[in-house]
């Protein structure tokens, strides 16, 4: 099994270096694609694509998307639609490709500051190891993606009671 290691992207904020786990990837939709970053966000339930990237990067007409409901975050809530985006990342012979449903805000000015890869479905496919302290220099750090290519037999595990 091959795991993929990435250096964190460093942002200088208020004289402090903030490390963010940003996955270098190619996003595609139909015939359009571009190479960019998605924040790997274990705190987000699902993935979200900023409107600008949907419109200018992937040529999606967001006015034609149908609302599936509201999504909330620290900045408030917004009406969202879902688009299925082609996600491609990796290195040379170790490339991974998958379709990822991503939410897009249907309201202007309600985007997250970065497009993000939330838990569903990405974390079902990859185990993510955030290593911010692997050296004694706090401005260095890396995160590693391990493919979940050998899931255990669920019958051997106790399932929590279902929610109503």
């Amino acid at each position, binding site marked *: 099994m091959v*795991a993929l290691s990435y*250096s964190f992207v460093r942002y200088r*904020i208020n004289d402090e270096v903030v490390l963010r786990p940003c996955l270098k990837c190619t996003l595609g939709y139909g015939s359009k694609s571009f190479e960019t970053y998605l924040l790997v966000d274990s705190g987000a339930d699902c993935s979200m694509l900023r409107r600008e990237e949907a419109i200018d990067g992937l040529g999606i007409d967001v006015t034609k998307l149908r609302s599936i409901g509201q999504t909330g975050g620290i900045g408030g809530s917004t009406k969202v639609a879902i688009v299925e985006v082609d996600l491609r990342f990796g290195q040379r012979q170790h490339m991974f490709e998958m379709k990822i449903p991503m939410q897009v805000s249907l309201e202007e000015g309600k985007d997250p500051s970065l497009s993000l890869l939330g838990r569903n479905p990405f974390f079902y496919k990859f185990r993510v190891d955030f290593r911010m302290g692997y050296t004694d220099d706090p401005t260095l750090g890396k995160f590693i993606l391990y493919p979940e290519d050998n899931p255990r037999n669920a019958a051997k595990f106790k399932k929590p009671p279902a929610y109503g």
Partner: protein
Amino acid sequence: MKAKAEEVIEAGGADHEWLVSQNLAPYVGKWIAVSDRRIVAFGPTLREVLTRARADGVEPLCLRVPEGYVTV
């Protein structure tokens, strides 16, 4: 039987490794387009930097440098 050792590869590539070593402060609030370890375009919109880079025959790596505040 022992589990097979995992091979970990550095997957970011040259442009990513170059980018993470740069000071992005001058580009806060902007998009930057990177190719061959240099910034080939920057501007306020993704459309602008993609158009400029592609006009030069480059398919760049694009990054938005968000406004300078920490997020939760």
